[in-house]
């Protein structure tokens, strides 16, 4: 389980889980689940395009992820945010379909872009992933108070002179950064799963922001490590376990919240739905 190719997987998986836990916490808090799904998924089209013109797929991923973040941020200022997100997503996927139709893409490569190839991570991939991860986590740390305030009390934030739409766009760019580094490792579909399940569960267990953030990262790490071990033992795709474990955390969280509402102190309120 700790042979050389697995060591890379453990390292990459750990980095990805930390970032997903941190960024995902704000995704859940801000209700940005749809952009968090759309940006990595759309970025997949960028990788297909990069393959077509012979550029490093990371460049394509980055360009499309950033384009998606800025486009969604900009267009949703004068339209329904969720409709705009859906349209941006299908537009990018349609481009991806056009790219794929012009190239002779090998089927497993598409599969791995969507569902990840964590067991095939090379040691040269670790460093860029690590650097982007540090940038993402640092950006969240710098914006921490602004992200919190615009998520929880947009009116107060506006009164303090913060511009919610600008903070939202910056946050989408952070998602784009997290996406660019994680798609080649865990795939476009699974980074979303990892950004939703563990943080949503964490919010069921505690109302305190700092603690919830910590729990979110812990759940994400547990999901990732458990998935890697399970995938190694069963030879099934990591993605299946990431999806199942993430959902499991959420179910646990909901059960705990229900139990706590019935038996716990009345002061504690479930703020999941926000």
């Amino acid at each position, binding site marked *: 389980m700790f042979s050389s190719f697995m060591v890379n997987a453990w390292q990459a998986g750990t980095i990805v889980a930390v970032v997903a836990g941190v960024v995902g916490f704000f995704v859940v808090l801000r209700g940005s689940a*749809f952009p968090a799904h759309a940006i990595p998924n759309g970025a997949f089209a960028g990788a297909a395009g990069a393959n077509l013109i012979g550029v490093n797929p990371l460049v394509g991923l980055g360009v499309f992820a950033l384009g998606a973040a800025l486009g969604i941020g900009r267009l949703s200022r004068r339209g329904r945010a969720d409709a705009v997100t859906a349209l941006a997503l299908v537009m990018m996927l349609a481009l991806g379909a056009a790219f794929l139709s012009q190239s002779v893409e090998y089927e497993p490569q598409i599969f791995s872009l969507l569902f990840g190839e964590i067991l095939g991570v090379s040691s040269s991939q670790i460093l860029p992933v690590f650097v982007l991860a540090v940038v993402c986590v640092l950006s969240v740390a710098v914006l921490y108070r602004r992200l919190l305030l615009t998520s929880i009390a947009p009116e107060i934030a506006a009164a303090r002179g913060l511009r919610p739409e600008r903070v939202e766009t910056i946050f989408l760019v952070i998602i784009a950064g997290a996406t660019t580094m994680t798609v080649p490792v865990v795939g476009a579909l699974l980074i979303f799963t990892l950004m939703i399940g563990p943080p949503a569960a964490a919010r069921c267990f505690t109302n305190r922001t700092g603690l919830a953030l910590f729990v979110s990262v812990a759940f994400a790490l547990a999901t990732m490590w458990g998935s890697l071990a399970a995938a190694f033992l069963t030879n099934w795709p990591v993605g299946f376990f990431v999806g199942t474990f993430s959902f499991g955390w959420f179910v646990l969280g909901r059960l705990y919240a229900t139990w706590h509402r019935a038996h716990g102190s009345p002061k504690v309120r479930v703020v999941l739905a926000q």
Partner: protein
Amino acid sequence: MHAIFEPGFFSSGPVHVALVIGAVAALVSAVVGVFAVVRGQSFAGHALTDVATTGGSGAFVLGISPLVGFLGAAIFGAGAMDLVGVQRVRGRDLATGVVLGAATGLAALFLFLDTTSGATTGATQTILFGSIFTVASSTIPTVAALSVVTIFVIAFIYRPLLLSSFSADLAAARGISLRVVGLLFMLALAVSVGLSSIAIGSVLSTALLIGPAAAALRLATSLRGALVLACVLGVVATWLGVLFAYDSFYWFSKSQGLPVSSFIVALIFVAYLASGMPVLRRRGERSGAAGRGGPRGTRVEESA
């Protein structure tokens, strides 16, 4: 791959099927889509296509009819979203995301089993992007029949749905069960999305669901007008897209045309952007509020 553009492959048959099935899918999607957009359930509408395709890949593994897989998974997914809390406006996207995440994990497993069993090469792509040209003409009656059922359900709950979409409090005060209306709508959404994703692929399904509806809602002054306009936009974009895709075969020397879904989506996207132009002048003040979560139907309310 997308080897549907073989030279000489075109008798008019596939094109006719594409035109018919595309129009049916566009009409149903437009009607359901208007409510999906108004209710702020675009994400659910999109996520259900992914859930449906998970069912599709599961059907491959189990060897049952793909239609059963697609529809079954979509309906099950809609029920799960409702259970997790899709009926609460603020928790909708999260509930959708949780269900989508779980379905994605299953999809990873099913596609893995598909590809290792070797029975379905190209399954990932077919399922994601589908193609309107590869639809068998024998599926038309099924799709049409289920579409009629979907439209009927929407017509049946039209007024309560309308009221609960625009003002949940008012609807509740009138004795409308938001839960029942919401669940019925989710089921209609699931059937419509499941059908269109098996017929035309999940990308196009979302595009036809959200695009024409969102554009029409920006242009029309009443909900009825928006419904009609969305239907027109959807059908026109679909037919033009089929035409362009047919022609695109002659554009390149590589004898490889572009996928029809790319054209249809591009047309819909352009239509949406164009619909924003007059809105830009009339409602320039609407900034900021749309930044998170999604506003809930304020726009039509003020113009209806």
